[in-house]
């Protein structure tokens, strides 16, 4: 009996992975290719100056950098260091994991039968990211919110390559680059782009080598997280007593809170989280599925770790509270009035 359940959980786990891994791979390929072949600084000229429009534009940049919530942090950090206005960077940070073609496609495949989930996910993510970006624009100087090394980098960075090691300090989740010989490495690349030296202009052979290297690393790290998330999802689905899940999942308020908590804990990648949510589609309210799909990509345990490499804990807390409250209110609206 219990062996049977274990086998079911394993089958479920494999089915999530078999469906999700191709999307992760696609995300990794896209983010790597764009990292090396698109000049993000040329984007800056097109950005509107108005904070509200800037936040909205920032939220939409994800369409050009299809990264999940693991890939958006390095990009947002690079944007901030290059002097992009804070509403743009924060809009990007919060929206990019959802507002991009790969996530849109994956959500569409999973929720083809409930198109309202797909469109409301996009609408809510855009609205929330833009609002939070706008709110942060009232803080004219963002530096008190930022980690010292990022804050220092903002005005001084260009033309000061000696400052590069500060990127690699402990506590920022960067592995130190060591004995790399004469070849250029991914770490070099990150430093180089942060220092406004374009990687796009490197020779093609070097670019291809870095591309491969970057893909392997992202695949390894994110693949591990995906495996863990799928294991948690399968275990919850098979071993939690059905009536507990049902009673939580049908309440308009409890279902939202439960799914937001789940989103924060499982930290599943936004390119594949719709498949995860789909496994709850038959037992949870539509609003709670939306809460999961909108909140998860913005804030989760994994992303908090990454965000702390940009922001001080206080700012991460503000982001968390604002996003949490807005997601809760909008999903509750869906539960009470739209479904």
């Amino acid at each position, binding site marked *: 009996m219990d062996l049977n359940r274990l086998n079911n959980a394993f089958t479920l786990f494999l089915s999530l992975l078999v469906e999700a891994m191709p999307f992760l791979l696609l995300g990794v390929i896209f983010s790597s290719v764009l990292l090396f072949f698109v000049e993000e600084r040329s984007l800056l000229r097109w950005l509107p100056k108005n904070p509200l429009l800037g936040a909205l534009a920032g939220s939409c940049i994800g369409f050009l950098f299809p990264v999940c919530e693991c890939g958006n942090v390095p990009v947002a950090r690079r944007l901030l260091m290059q002097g992009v206005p804070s509403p743009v960077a924060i809009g990007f940070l919060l929206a990019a994991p959802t507002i991009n073609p790969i996530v849109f496609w994956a959500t569409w495949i999973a929720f*083809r039968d409930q198109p309202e989930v797909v469109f409301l996910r996009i609408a809510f993510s855009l609205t929330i990211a833009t609002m939070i970006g706008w709110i942060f624009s009232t803080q004219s100087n963002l530096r008190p919110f930022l980690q010292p090394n990022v804050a220092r980098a903002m005005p001084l960075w260009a033309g000061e390559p000696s400052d590069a090691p500060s990127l690699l300090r402990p506590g920022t989740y960067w592995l130190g680059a060591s004995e790399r010989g004469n070849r250029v*490495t991914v770490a070099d690349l990150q430093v180089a782009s942060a220092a406004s030296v374009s990687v796009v202009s490197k020779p093609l052979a070097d670019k291809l080598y870095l591309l491969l290297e970057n893909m392997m690393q992202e695949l390894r790290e994110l693949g591990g997280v995906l495996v863990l998330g799928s294991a948690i999802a399968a275990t919850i689905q098979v071993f939690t007593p059905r009536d507990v899940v049902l009673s939580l999942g049908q309440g308009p308020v409890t279902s939202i809170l439960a799914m937001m908590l789940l989103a924060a804990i499982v930290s599943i990648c936004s390119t594949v989280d719709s498949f995860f949510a789909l496994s709850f589609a038959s037992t949870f309210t539509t609003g709670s599925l939306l809460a999961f799909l909108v909140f998860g990509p913005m804030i989760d345990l994994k992303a908090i770790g990454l965000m702390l490499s940009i922001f001080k804990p206080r700012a991460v807390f503000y982001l968390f509270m604002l996003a949490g409250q807005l997601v809760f209110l909008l999903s509750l609206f869906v539960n009470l009035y739209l479904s």
Partner: protein
Amino acid sequence: MTRRRNGYLWLDIAAIAAWGFLFLKYWLTEKLYLLIHPNYFWLTIAAGFVLLGLALARAILVIRYPFAGTSGPHLSLFPPGWSRWILIATAIAGLLISPRAFASQTALERGISDSLTVTRVRPQAFRATVKPENRSIVDWTRTLTVYPEPDAYTGQSVSVKGFVVHSPETGPNYLLIARFIITCCAADAYPVSLPVKLPEGQRRDAYKPDSWQQVEGQMRTETLAGKRQLVIQATALSPVDEPKNPYDY
């Protein structure tokens, strides 16, 4: 130090390659049918080839440039190195343990029924089959969802294939004949079933749960477990092999 790092690199390559192998193995042994909707097979198969290609390309580079740098940003919850071990261990487990189709226990846990309730994902297509005996269990459920009055179907002949579920709510001369429907992957599989009244003098103990049966009979209306519903009055049940693709869509 360099040798050690190259060792890790080979582990990474092995992890990526193992996942490529795993995907292609599931495809070639037709286990993918147990895991995902056939519409998305190509995604998994393509991913299998791309993963193998990546591993191969990286392996060639390691052999050609053994001293090239490998370090970079480490963006993860885990301490360095955990990810590759998680990936390798899972891929090995996947290669060793075969996935199995869901069966009656899961069906009972997931709430088996003869209708698609509102919270459930709606069926992909409504196929109006002219002859009632050509309807599958899923076709019957869809028809019933559209027009639920059981009397409308009384007397129609039935011939359906599915696995046996012993519901605790019905007597010993009834069983449920069931199928799982999936829209995307096994994670969203949900069961649908029709109650079967066994021929006179037979008890359901003769038909083991999870065994696959072809049921022939006529539809009739009965009140079962306090609910007026459509029941198959079986004239014959014959055991059949579990199909290659146990799910319906």
